[in-house]
């Protein structure tokens, strides 16, 4: 399946672009992270410390074990600083 993967704030800067289309067989967010990290050094660096990374699946906050079946969009970003 193909997914839109989005990055925000310093993850976007480290990876070098705000979104990309990824062909994947990953069943969970964690498996997708492994695939992305293996793509190149920039992805690997941005996703190295997952304690500093938050995830949204189809625009809802999710965790690393969230399933990806039927999902269209996954976003990675740092802890939020709104308000």
């Amino acid at each position, binding site marked *: 399946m193909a997914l839109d993967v989005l990055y925000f704030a310093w993850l976007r800067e480290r990876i070098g672009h705000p979104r990309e289309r990824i062909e994947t067989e990953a069943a969970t967010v964690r498996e997708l992270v492994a695939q992305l990290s293996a793509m190149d050094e920039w992805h690997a660096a941005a996703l190295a410390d997952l304690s500093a990374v938050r995830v949204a699946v189809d*625009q809802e906050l999710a965790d690393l074990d969230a399933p990806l079946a039927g999902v269209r969009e996954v976003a990675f970003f740092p802890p939020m600083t709104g308000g």
Partner: protein
Amino acid sequence: MSARVQSAPFDLAAELAGFGQGSGAVVTFTGLVRDEGGRLVALEIEHYPGMTEKALQAYGEEAARRFGLDGWRILHRHGRLAAGEPIMMVATAARHRAAAFEAAEYLMDWLKSRAPFWKREIGPDGPGAWVDARAEDEDALSRWQG
């Protein structure tokens, strides 16, 4: 009962026109860009278009249920905001003040840690560091959970 995200400045008085009519209590909170003693000239605020609007709407609706609000408004800006400019506002209307105050605090705690915004500092020499999330903000949120 509305949530909005925009880059343009807002006028608090205009936003509150007619808000809370028939209620006993209206509480508003406005957040401003601090200059941090001259270290900051602006904040650059990034957000996640699509998710942001949905998240703000969901938090507003949850606050209305939990505190029995008559009305609520959330407005949050993005883009480059100069020191001293308003960043965001929440307004809550309820029959009595306790619910209005509590709901405003609840919304602020959620917006701080669970709305998809990211702040970057802009100093006199240009863009600086992304603002780190604060443990205090996460702690503040935990008091509403469980």
